[in-house]
């Protein structure tokens, strides 16, 4: 099953990219129930969705797969299981940024394999789209509020983290050169030449910490969690007896 949702935020691609690769920030505007235990890179939690008066709980976990700084593509693996049900979903969620008029076009797509249930109901798919719209709006709001200075710092750290994982010093050459970006122009993005300076101005500890975090953490985790929850909603079937019958064995 494939789902896709696009929206535009009024910030530059690099700024949006930096924001999206800060997993904790994105996750926080989706569900406070997702946790990442110290030292783990998998986010997990029981996400609850209320729909038509019924609450659906699903155990969701997310794991980052890959980051492509050049193409601004981030992918993560999502797995979900309905609590108390037999439905399972697993697949890949992708976020892709493109420069667009008025800012950055964010395209979120999900490709899922589902097991243990029938086909998704159109009504619930509708609900998924509506929910995704809500998320898009909150995400856009958050992105607009993000101070420019900090965003720039994030971008610099991101570039540095990508340049070989050596976290000693910020090398200006490590910032994404304009030539490395997609040929589609990024009119709203901060000029690349501004970035090294901005990075240098950022507090060293902040930059260092982010450098460690970026790349390892789930980007777009919130999107994934939302989609995971929605998928579980789609998967939900008429309630069945779910206790396992254990026969007398001996």
């Amino acid at each position: 099953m494939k789902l896709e949702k696009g929206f535009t935020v009024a910030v530059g691609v690099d700024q949006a990219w930096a924001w999206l690769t800060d997993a904790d920030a994105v996750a926080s505007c989706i569900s406070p129930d997702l946790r990442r235990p110290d030292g783990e890179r998998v986010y997990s939690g029981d996400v609850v969705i209320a729909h038509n008066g019924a609450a659906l709980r699903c155990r969701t976990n997310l794991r980052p797969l890959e980051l492509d700084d050049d193409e601004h593509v981030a992918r993560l693996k999502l797995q979900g299981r309905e609590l108390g049900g037999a439905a399972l979903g697993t697949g890949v969620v992708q976020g892709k940024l493109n420069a667009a008029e008025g800012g950055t076009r964010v395209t979120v797509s999900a490709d899922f394999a589902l097991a243990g249930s029938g086909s998704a109901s159109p009504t619930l798919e509708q609900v998924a789209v509506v929910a995704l719209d809500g998320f898009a709006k909150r995400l856009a709001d958050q992105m607009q509020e993000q101070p420019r200075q900090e965003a720039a710092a994030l971008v610099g750290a991101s570039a540095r983290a990508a340049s070989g994982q050596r976290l000693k010093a910020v090398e200006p050459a490590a910032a994404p050169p304009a030539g490395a970006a997609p040929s589609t122009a990024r009119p709203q993005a901060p000029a690349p030449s501004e970035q090294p300076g901005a990075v240098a101005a950022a507090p060293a500890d902040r930059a260092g910490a982010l450098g460690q975090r970026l790349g390892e953490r789930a980007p777009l985790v919130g999107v994934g969690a939302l989609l995971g929850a929605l998928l579980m909603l789609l998967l939900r079937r008429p309630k069945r007896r779910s206790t396992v019958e254990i026969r007398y064995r001996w």
Partner: protein
Amino acid sequence: MSSETTTKPRRRASAKARVPYVGRPLPRVEDRPLLVGAGGYVDDFERPGMLHAHVVRSEVAHGRIRSIDVAAARRLPGVEHVITAADLPPVEIPVRLFPTDSSNRTLQPPLARDRVRYVGEPVAVVVATDPYLAEDAAAQVAVDVEPLVPVLDVEQAADDDAWLLHPQLGTNVIDRVTVGGDEAEVARLIRGADVVVRKRFRLARQGAVPLETRGLLAEYDADANALTVWGAAKVKHFNRTILSDLIGLPEASLRLIEGDVGGGFGARGEFYPEDYLIPWLAREIGRPVKWIEDRRENLLALNHSREQQWDLELAADREGRFIAFRASVLWAQGAYSRTHGSVLLPRLILLHASGPYRWQAFWGEASSVLTNKTPAGTYRGPGQYEPTFVRERMVDLVAREVGIDPAEIRRRNIITKAEMPYDSGLLDLDTGLPMVYDDGDFPLVFEQLLERCGYDQLRADVVRRQRAGERVGLSATSFIEMGNPGVFEQARVEALPDGRFVAHVGIASVGQGVETVLSQVAADLLHVPIEQVAVRYRDTATVPEGQGAFSSRATVWGGYAVAGAIRALQERAVEVAAERFNAVADEIEADGDSVLVPRGRRRRRVPIAELASEGFFRYEPGSASHVLTGGNVALVRVDPGSGDVVLERWWLAYEVGRAINPLTLEGQVRGAAVQGIGGALLEAFAYAPDGQPLTTSFLDYALPTAAESPNVEVLLVELGERREGDPLSGAKGGGEGGIIGVGATVANAVADALGGAAGELTELPILPETVQRLAALQAPAARGGAKPPMRSAS
């Protein structure tokens, strides 16, 4: 049934067209708990205060034990007990099947006494509070061994001047058995024949390798003087008897309990050294002791099988009609005679040598030979897989020699229906009486196989592809299976007040679906939904005796035992009803789960459970053995560059009389075929020249996986006669047939693909190296299609 009218309304329920469960492809009742993780394998069982044992095993293939120092191991914290042979009474594990004087002089003690004879032989046991500690301590046990020359090759071992494993025997040849008539007459026939092919064949050591390793948990209750052992399988009543003898407790004090069993295949469930050691330790220490075999141990300690060498001469006339064969077989028994003794396998091998073919005469001998390797026993299709490989290879070589198609030569030699009853010249394993083939239709099964696969078209395609340079090959082989051995089987059927029935049986489950098929039989006889029937087989305490699960016997033997017990239950109910309702017993009729008692012009239906609680039956029909036949067709492609063999298509026909459950039977047949493919292409227990085993993990002992498995198209041929009221009528014990012809079929197809080098293909498994080498001997362009020139085949 047409006499049923509305005047007997109560009979309607049972008489209305009830579709019998027998014959239906019902999913297994066993599956759900296994699939949802609710099964109970031996390692799932725990007892309070349980200790863990680790067996210290010989690291030397052959040697004299100078000393075993256990002091360092004993000192480690958490170690409760360490034993060696010196701590045990002088017991040995007896032969279960066909003991001989020689086999009784080559028995295995539970712990090696003065000599070690294979790598993996138990020499000591450490018991600790934790399995890790036990293994740590085991590493501290110092076994000082003076090495002796290891005897590894079966032919060298059989030499008069070979180093001896058991000097008191004076030879390494434990026993020798023969089959057939006058050896001199056979030799004369062979001398005078137009076509004679002579070959030596070798089969590597292979084994059952069940996915669940063995394990035991033993607990002794001193107050009750009762010993309970979890982890039994296959032949738990036999093992109870053996354990009772060895450990000196009456059988009534022993309970052997089966958990779910993750594969048996003949090897799991036999009585091994650990089956004595762990209960002995539990009694000695007074605390429950658990032992779970690890994979390395499993590959060293569980019975091996299959290793043998054949010298075979086969004579035929110019039309490819067989005249006679003469076979000499060395069966590599390994270091000891175990529960299968020293003559069972040689006998089985010779019993299956002549196959479904007509011979003027044949003669064969087979010897069991000691070598410094893990002792051998039966493994799925024992003594069937190997002679079928050898015979069917020879048949194809004769076909090449006389220039006819492999299918055609078989047509000319397979015993026809018109020739039945046909005296096979063989003697029944259990009764010793002459075996007469009087059942089945061998040519019909073979022709149905050829028809199903479209053999002629396949052959034409293969010839076309070969001419285009592809190394493809086609084979069609035939096999025979002496099935369903045994002496007796017991069952007890209980009627519960709520209308359910419980059948307690003495057979075992090794994962083959026994509960399902016996439930089908019982439900049909009792006229109840299958959900109202439960089959219990796990505990020696519930049925006095039982022979167990081997040689595909569980369905038929267990089924007739259950049927008899149901009949006994019904008879008892009739008796009680006669008394209670003051009726004449002859006028009371048993009808499934009820009896019908005359009441005026109508009849009263009384549930059995209100009249009788249980029925018991011992099925002991004399011999119930029978012959099954079948065949395989395989289309293979060979990569001459790598030596890879790709199984493109596979068809398997199997005459089973009647299939009680075609779904479980087909599943077993497919599984068996895949296991046979492992034997044909992948599996071999290898040893270094010093007797060190080289295959001690799944990295080196290569089992086939789904990726190596072709889609096996199974054709079940049901020729069994159906008798009213007997749901088992016509059924034969099936399941193993899937493996029997596989080695032969792969080998013949690869040989066909290799063309002129085919005669060199005389070993199993077929290694890529061999295929690569033979493929290079003759390029495909030099081949002449289906009838290549034949070199001297000897």
